Structure formats: structure tokens, C-alpha cells
């Protein structure tokens, strides 16, 4: 798959083109080899320096890269025979929420993830990864399935947020999210959530109330979209980068704030450069946490999760 460069990667793309152009002349002009080597070195240095100095908004661009691996890409790599489960049983099957039975290492887990869609058609069906209330209720059904059969729940989060539409409001999007939080907090099976791309607001949290929250290196997680934040607080759409910075939405920042438990490294350039590697690393990290969690009793697993969220908050008690 040919990588589509992001805006901040343009200098790299230009270098790469130059290298390609010279390489074509190599056969007739062997002494150009040195130029190629020099340029390749420049390329490598530039890439490293770019990725060593990413701004929050750059992370966000990587997190939203159109070639980024989505939930199905992980499930397929973890278990080529994973079995998808459809529907909320009450009238809808939301393609933006993918659920199924996945063999993850030695664990049988209920995998639940938002799905943005790759092709335009799939994107539209998935509302670009923004679930309807029915999607959250499908996830809820599977939470209960996991609880009944004592299976860990692994959720993959990559959503701009819950879909803001008329149908969604009429069908009580807010309740769908709230009830998921409510029920997730009561599960006695381990829940591990991974923010693989964008973690957008309540629509992300609705499958993210977990014993362990992991984030991919370039993924982001925020209470409101930077666009929304910029337009409300700065009253200017130009201030998205400032908003990204101010909200502390990158994996490393949130790890430092103590909300996230682990950050999963991505290959240089982002997860879309090597799906297999990222799926493997994610699997290892998830299993590491499952290994810890399954040592607890079921009641302890619930208490662990409740305690985790009980303690999140920053305030002064005079």
C-alpha cells in the first residue's frame, strides 16, 4: 500500500521524489549513487527529526490518517477466524460499531470497536466512525454477553464522537452513552480499552470505561474536538493547533496526567506503515494487562475499575 503523506510530511515527500528521480538515472549514470546515498541519509534524518518534534496537531493528523488501521484490521490480524456479531436485536445493526468473538492470544475476548470505514461507501455507512445510539446498544448487548460467559472485553476506540443527528437525538444518544458507562462500570470481567486513533468525547468513552486504558503512540483523546474547542474558546477556526496543545490530548500527555495506563509504540511514520506490527504490539500489550487482571477475582475486577475512575479528577479541597 502506497503511503499517502500528511501535510507536515511534505518535505519528506519532496525528498522521496528526488530520490526516485535520481534512481531512475542510476543505470545510465552510476556515479549518481553517492547522491542517492546522501539524499537517503538526509531523508532519514529529516524523518527522525520530524517525528521527534511532533506537535499535538501532528499526532492528531497521524491519528486521523485515512490509511490508519481500523477495528476490523486488528480483529482480522489477531484471529483470522474471528466471528462477527451483529445487531442490537431491536431494529438496527450499526456498521460504525463492530463486535465479535475474537481469540486474542490465549484469551477468548469480546472485541468491540468503532469503525470509520475505508471506502467512501463504507465511510458513509459507518457515518465516518460516529455510532448511532443503536451502535452503543449493540455494544451493550455484547458487554452483557461477555459478563454472562466470563469473557474479557477489549474495545478499540477510533471515533470523532457519537453521531450528532436528528435520528440519534430522537433515539436518545445521551442515554445510550450513559447506560453504557453505567453498565460497563458494573462488569466483573476485565475490560481493556485501546484508543487506536481519535478518542472523541463521550462517544469514545461509551466503550472506554475500562480497567486499563491504552493509547497508541500517535492517537489522541479529548473531551471535545479541537475544532469545537477553538471555535468556542477562541471564537476562531484558525486556532485548532492551539486547542490541540491546550487540551493535552496526546497519548504521552494523557499518560503523564495519569488517566491512561500504557502507550503502545507505533512504527516510524505511524501505524499505517505496518498494520501487522501494530496489531502484534497492541495484542502483546493488551494481553499483558489481561494477564494482570485475570489474577483478580471477579469482584476485585469490578472494584479495580470503579476505583480507577473514582480517583480521576483534579481539584482543591480547602
Amino acid at each position, binding site marked *: 500500500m502506497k503511503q499517502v503523506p500528511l501535510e507536515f510530511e511534505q518535505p519528506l515527500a519532496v525528498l522521496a521524489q528526488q530520490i526516485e528521480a535520481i534512481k531512475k538515472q542510476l543505470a545510465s549514470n552510476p556515479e549518481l549513487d553517492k547522491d542517492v546515498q546522501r539524499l537517503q541519509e538526509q531523508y532519514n534524518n529529516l524523518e527522525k527529526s520530524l517525528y521527534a518534534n511532533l506537535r499535538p496537531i501532528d499526532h492528531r493528523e497521524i491519528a486521523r490518517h485515512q490509511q490508519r488501521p481500523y477495528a476490523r484490521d486488528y480483529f482480522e490480524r489477531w484471529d483470522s477466524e474471528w466471528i462477527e456479531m451483529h445487531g442490537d436485536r431491536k431494529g438496527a445493526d450499526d456498521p460504525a460499531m463492530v463486535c465479535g468473538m475474537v481469540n486474542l492470544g490465549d484469551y477468548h475476548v469480546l472485541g468491540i470497536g468503532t469503525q470509520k470505514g475505508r471506502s467512501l461507501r463504507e465511510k458513509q455507512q459507518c457515518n465516518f466512525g460516529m455510532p448511532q445510539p443503536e451502535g452503543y446498544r449493540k455494544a451493550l448487548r455484547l458487554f452483557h454477553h461477555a459478563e454472562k460467559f466470563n469473557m474479557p472485553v477489549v474495545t478499540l476506540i477510533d471515533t470523532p464522537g*457519537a*453521531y*450528532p*443527528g*436528528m435520528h*440519534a*437525538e*430522537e*433515539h*436518545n*444518544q*445521551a*442515554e445510550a*452513552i*450513559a*447506560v453504557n*458507562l*453505567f*453498565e460497563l*462500570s*458494573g462488569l466483573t470481567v476485565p475490560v481493556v480499552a485501546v484508543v487506536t486513533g481519535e478518542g472523541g*468525547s*463521550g462517544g469514545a*468513552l*461509551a466503550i*472506554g*470505561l475500562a480497567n486499563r486504558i491504552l493509547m497508541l503512540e500517535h492517537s489522541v*483523546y*479529548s*473531551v*471535545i474536538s479541537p475544532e469545537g*474547542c477553538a471555535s*468556542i*474558546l*477562541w471564537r476562531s477556526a484558525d*486556532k485548532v493547533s*492551539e*486547542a490541540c496543545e*491546550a*487540551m*493535552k*490530548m496526546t497519548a504521552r500527555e*494523557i499518560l503523564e*496526567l495519569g*488517566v491512561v495506563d500504557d502507550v503502545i509504540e507505533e512504527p516510524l511514520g505511524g501505524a499505517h506503515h505496518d498494520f501487522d506490527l501494530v496489531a502484534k504490539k497492541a495484542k502483546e500489550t493488551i494481553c499483558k494487562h489481561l494477564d494482570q487482571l485475570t489474577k483478580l477475582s471477579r469482584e476485585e475486577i469490578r472494584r479495580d*475499575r*470503579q476505583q480507577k*475512575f*473514582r480517583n*480521576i*479528577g*483534579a*481539584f*482543591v*479541597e*480547602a
Partner: protein
Amino acid sequence: MDLKDWFDKRKKRRDDEKGKAPQPIEPSDDICALWTNCFQCRELLYTRDLRVNLHVCPKCQYHFRIGAIERIDQLADEDTFEESDANLTSSDPLKFSDTDNYPNRQREASRKSGLTEAIVTGTCKIKTYDAALGIMDFGHFGGSMGSVVGEKVTRITERAQRDKLPLIIVSSSGGARMQEGIFSLMQLAKTSSALKSFQDAGGLYISILAEPTFGGVTASFAMLGDIIIAEPGARIGFAGRRVIEQTIRQKLPADFQTAEYLLKHGQVDMVVERAKLADQLAKLIAFHKLPEKKTAVTTPDAVPARPKQPTKVS
């Protein structure tokens, strides 16, 4: 002004005024103005009359937004409210700054609202029934939920569970406290989790949705009531109307996201006008106090019908 001082002063004033004929009140910094235009029917209303009428337009029944103190005054039996966790205040975990910094915005919010945070919690009696109470105030920082709101909701829920009190929360919120970033978002999880424990333990939680209730508050504790009540005309939803219109590129019906629309769409149990709210709460609490023996029934009829005087604030 500290909330306790405020209540003390108010009590003193009420004691002083006992037996006196009602006095015309002077406009002051504390109250807005002598006359108010109804937002809905545009009628010009004498502000004092409006206040006596619980801030409901006598002509079109428009329910004005009211502050937490006003609301407590309307719901709690006289002098029974005891505030909890008044000592919690926001910190600035992200060192957040947009066109101004977060601490400055907090001070500004408090100056406007007279409160330290967007919710006031405590215990009280409602028509003689003990209850745990949380009242949000949209006038403070748009009723946004940050760590303090989350912590106070969680603590009052834990208190209700410990003391076996019915829990009543009046929501009114524009959504998340952006300045607290991910901490703000996590309060949805924290409050919902506390309510799960409370409700698993059999606690009764009545959620009241007041104009306006949106975003993270709706998507957590506001929608988790055993019983959900909305105030007439209150706008309630997850996403804001403008965001939706931009997304679907289509005009929404005029009554979209109103309390009555939600009732029609099965999202709230009932719409109760403000004048009847305290009585309705008492009836609901009474109904859920189950008689252990058939003979030990406490019916709502047993509630003394004590006429409640609206407080005059000056």
C-alpha cells in the same frame, strides 16, 4: 458571598420580616432589574412577581432558568438544607489558557454566579422527607462539568447510598468543562460508576432536567435516573441544535429537544411544572418507601400540605 452566609442572612431577613406587610424591593446589584421581558411571550413582567411565581411567566408558563440557591429554596423545606463539600474548588491541571487563563475564568464565573462551582450539593427535607440533593447552576460557567462537579456528584451519591437517602439531582449544563480536558470527560465515567453502585444497592435516584441540559451531563448522570423528570420547555439533548443542523444540513422541528419532545420520544417519565415539583418529589419518595408490613404504609396523602412561601431576595 459564602453560601452558608447567604442562607444565614436570608433566614435572618425572613425572621425579621415575619408579620410585616410585603415591602417593595429595590433594584440592586444582586438582582437584575425591576422589570423582565418574558423570553417566550415577550410580556413585560414585574421582576418581583416573577420571583414570587417561582420564575415562571404567569402568562405563558415559560420556565425561566433559575440559580441553584433559588432552586434549593423552592424544593427544600425551610432551613433544612445543609450543604456538603462546599470546600471543593477547581484546580488547573492542564495550565489551560485560551484568550484568558482558566483561573481567571473561574474567578469571573464565581463573581457572576456567587457560587464556587456549577453544582451545589447537600441534604435537606422535601415536604418532610429526607433527601440528598444536587443542584446545578447554569449561571456558573455554563453549568459545565469539571472535576469538582464530578467529585461533588459522586460524593453526594455515596452519601445517599451510605445514609439510604433518595438522591435528587437537578441538571442544567452546557456540557464539559473544556479547560479540564480529559479530566472533564472522565467525570462522565466517575459519576455513572458511582450511580451504578448506588442503584445496585437499591437507592432511588430522581433526575430532574432543567433548561438547558446538554453534552456530558446528559450523557451521564442526568439520563440515569430511576425516574426522569423534565421542566416544561427545557431544552435537553446530547449534541447541540446547531451542530446537528450543520451535520445533517437540514432544519430541525421547532420543538426539537424540548422537554415535551423528549416525553413524546420516550426519554423522560414526566414533565412537571415548577410549582408542583416539590409535591411530586414528595409523592415519588413516599411511593418508593415500601411498607414492610401492609399496615405501615406511608401514602403521599400523609404528607402535611404545608404552603411554602417563595423567598424574597434582596
